[in-house]
C-alpha cells in the first residue's frame, strides 16, 4: 500500500512538472513578455532593465523553477488584457464555475444511478428501451447543441427560464452565490442540465452494465432462492456491488465536468472560469491561459490521485493482488 501510494504521488508530481513546463514555455516563447508589458515608447535601457527584473537573463532552468515557485504561491502575473493580477480574476470567477459543476455533478449522479437501476431491472420493458435509445442520441449530441436546444425550448418558445447569465447573486464572505435568490436558482437550471446530461448518460450506462453483471451472479440467484424480496435483492445486495466502479468513473468525470464547463459557460454566457479561458484564447492572453492550465491540472491530477487511492481502499481484492503479486 505504502509503495503504491508513494509511486502514485511521484507520478502526479511528475505530471504537474510537465504541465508547468508547458505553461512556462507559453509564457516564455509565445510572444515576448517584455513586448507585452512595455508600450510603444520605450528605450533599450527600459528593455534591459525589465529583462533583468523579470529574470529573463537567467538560464532557462532557473527561470522555470522561479516560475514554479511563483505559481505555487498563486502568482501568475498580470492579465495582458485586463491588466489585473490573474489570481484575482480567477478567484472572482471560480464560485460561478464551482456552483455550476456541483449542481450538474449531483444531478448526473442522482439521475444516472436511478435511471441505471431502472433500465437494469426492467431490461426488457418499454420504458427502459426508450431511456436507452434517448441516451444513445444524448451521447451523440454535442454539448453546445443541447444547450442551444434547451435555450430555444425554455427561453425563446416558452419563456420560462433565462437564456444567459447567473441571475441575481448574493455575496457571502467573498463568495458570490446564486443559490440564495429565485433568479439565481432559475438561471442554474438550463446550464446544469446541459453540462450534466452527458455525464448522466455515462453513469447510467455504467450502472446498468454493472448491475446486469451483478444480477447474473450466483449470490443473487441464491438470495432469490432464499425467498428474499425483489426490492431487497436489487437495492441491498446488488446495488452495493455496482457502486465501486461508479465511484471511480464519477470521480474522474468531476474533472471533465469542469473542463466541459467551458462549452456550457460560453453557450449561456455564464461568468465562470471557462468563459474566462475561452476569452483568453481569443485574445491570446497568455498569463490567464497558463494560470488556468496550471489550476485545472492540479485539480485533474488531484482528483485522479484521490480516486485511485479511494478505489484501492474500497476494493480489498485490488489490495490483495498488489501486495501478493507485486513483488
Amino acid at each position, binding site marked *: 500500500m505504502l509503495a503504491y501510494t508513494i509511486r502514485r504521488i511521484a507520478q502526479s508530481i*511528475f*505530471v504537474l512538472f*510537465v*504541465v508547468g513546463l508547458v505553461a512556462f514555455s*507559453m509564457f516564455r516563447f*509565445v*510572444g515576448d513578455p517584455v513586448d507585452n508589458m512595455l508600450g510603444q515608447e520605450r528605450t533599450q535601457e527600459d528593455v534591459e532593465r525589465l529583462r533583468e527584473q523579470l529574470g529573463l537573463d537567467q538560464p532557462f532552468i532557473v527561470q522555470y523553477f522561479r516560475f514554479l515557485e511563483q505559481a505555487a504561491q498563486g502568482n501568475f502575473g498580470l492579465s495582458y488584457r485586463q491588466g489585473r493580477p490573474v489570481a484575482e480574476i480567477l478567484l472572482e470567477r471560480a464560485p460561478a464555475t464551482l456552483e455550476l459543476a456541483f449542481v450538474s455533478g449531483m444531478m448526473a449522479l442522482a439521475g444516472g444511478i436511478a435511471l441505471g437501476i431502472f433500465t437494469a431491472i426492467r431490461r426488457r420493458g418499454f420504458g427502459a428501451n426508450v431511456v436507452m435509445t434517448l441516451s444513445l*442520441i444524448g451521447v*451523440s*449530441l*454535442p*454539448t*453546445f*447543441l443541447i444547450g*442551444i436546444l434547451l*435555450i*430555444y425550448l425554455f427561453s*425563446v418558445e416558452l419563456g420560462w427560464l433565462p*437564456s444567459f447569465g447567473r441571475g441575481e447573486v448574493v455575496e457571502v464572505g467573498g463568495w458570490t452565490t446564486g443559490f440564495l435568490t429565485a433568479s439565481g436558482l432559475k438561471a442554474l437550471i438550463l446550464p446544469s442540465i446541459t453540462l450534466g446530461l452527458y455525464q448522466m448518460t455515462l453513469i447510467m450506462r455504467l450502472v446498468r452494465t454493472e448491475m446486469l453483471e451483478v444480477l447474473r451472479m450466483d449470490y443473487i440467484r441464491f438470495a432469490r432462492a432464499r425467498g428474499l424480496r425483489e426490492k431487497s435483492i436489487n437495492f441491498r445486495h446488488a446495488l452495493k456491488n455496482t457502486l465501486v466502479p461508479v465511484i471511480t468513473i464519477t470521480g474522474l468525470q468531476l*474533472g*471533465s465536468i469542469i*473542463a*466541459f464547463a*467551458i*462549452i456550457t459557460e*460560453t453557450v449561456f454566457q455564464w461568468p465562470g472560469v471557462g468563459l474566462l*479561458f*475561452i476569452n*483568453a*484564447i*481569443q485574445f*491570446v492572453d*497568455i498569463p490567464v*491561459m497558463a494560470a488556468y*492550465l496550471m489550476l*485545472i*491540472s492540479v485539480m*485533474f*491530477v488531484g482528483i*485522479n490521485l484521490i480516486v485511485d487511492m479511494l478505489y484501492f481502499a474500497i476494493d480489498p481484492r485490488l489490495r490483495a493482488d498488489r501486495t501478493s503479486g507485486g513483488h
Partner: protein
Amino acid sequence: MTQTETPPTPAPVKAPSRLSRAWHSDLAWSFRRAPVAMISAFVVIVLVLSAVLAPLIAPHDPFNPATLNLMNGFTPPGEANAFTGDFFFLGTDDQGRDVFSTILYGMRISLFVGFAAVMLAMVLGVILGLLAGYLGGWTETIIMRVADVQLTFPAILVAMLIFGIAKGITPPEYRDQMAIWVLILAIGLSDWVQFARVVRGATLVEKSREYVQAAKLIGRSPLSIMLRHILPNVLNPVLVIATISLALAIIAEATLSFLGVGAPPTKPSLGTLIRIGQEFMFSGEWWILFFPAVTLLALALSINLLGDWLRDALNPKLR
C-alpha cells in the same frame, strides 16, 4: 478551396491481403445484414459527396459578394422573397446568403478538418505505438509517459490549448488563413494517444509471434518488420478507432468553431454557421441555426453508428 477530399472510410495505404479478403467476405456479409449500418453509410456517402461537389451543387456561391443581394436577407425557407421574388430552398441569412449553399461549403470545411485531423492522429499514433511496442525500453517509457500525461486531460481542452498557443505564435494578419491548419493540428495532436495505446498493445502481442521471429532471423531490418509485417496485423482496431475518431473530430471542430476558437467567419465550418445562427434564434429566424445544426447532427450520428457497426463486425468475440 483546392483541397481534395479523402474517401469516407480511411482505407490503409498499403492494403494487405488479409484486409481485402475480409472486405470481400465477413465485413460485406455483416454489412448486408445491418440495416442501421446501411442507412448510416448512405447518409455519410450523400453528405460527403455533396460536400465534395459543393461548387457544382450549390445554387449560389456564398463567398462571392457580387452574387449576394442584401434585399434577399432573412428569406424564410421554401418561400419567395417578398421584395425580389427569389426563391431559396432553405432560406437565407442576414446578408442574403443562401443557407443551403453555406451548409454545403461549411460541411466541406468540417469534413476536411475532420479527415485531416484523424489522419494526423492516426499516422502519429500508429508510428509512435509501433515504436513503443517494438523497441520497448526508453523509447516506450517516454512515449507512453507523454501519452499518460496527455490522457489526464480531456481532448477538447488539449485542442483548445494547442489552438491558443498556435494563435499566439502566428502573426495576426495570417491568423484567419492559418486557422484551418491550426485546427487540424490541434485536433490531430489531441487525439493520437488512443491510436498509440492500441497499436502498442497489439504490437506487443504480435512481436512474440513466430512470423516476426522468422523475419528477424532472415535479417529483416526492424523498420521493415514494423511496417511490412506487424503493421498490417494491427490495422483492424486502428480502422475502428479512426471511424469513431472521425465523428469525434467533426464534433470537436464544430465545438471549437462554435466557441469562436476555430474556423473564422470568412471560412465558416458547420460550427461557425451554428455560432452565427444562434444570434438569430431570439428574433425568430430559426432556419439560419436549425439547418446547419441538423446537418452536423446527421453527419456525426451516422459516422458514429457506422463506427459502432464496424467495431462489432471486426471483433469476432462480440458475435
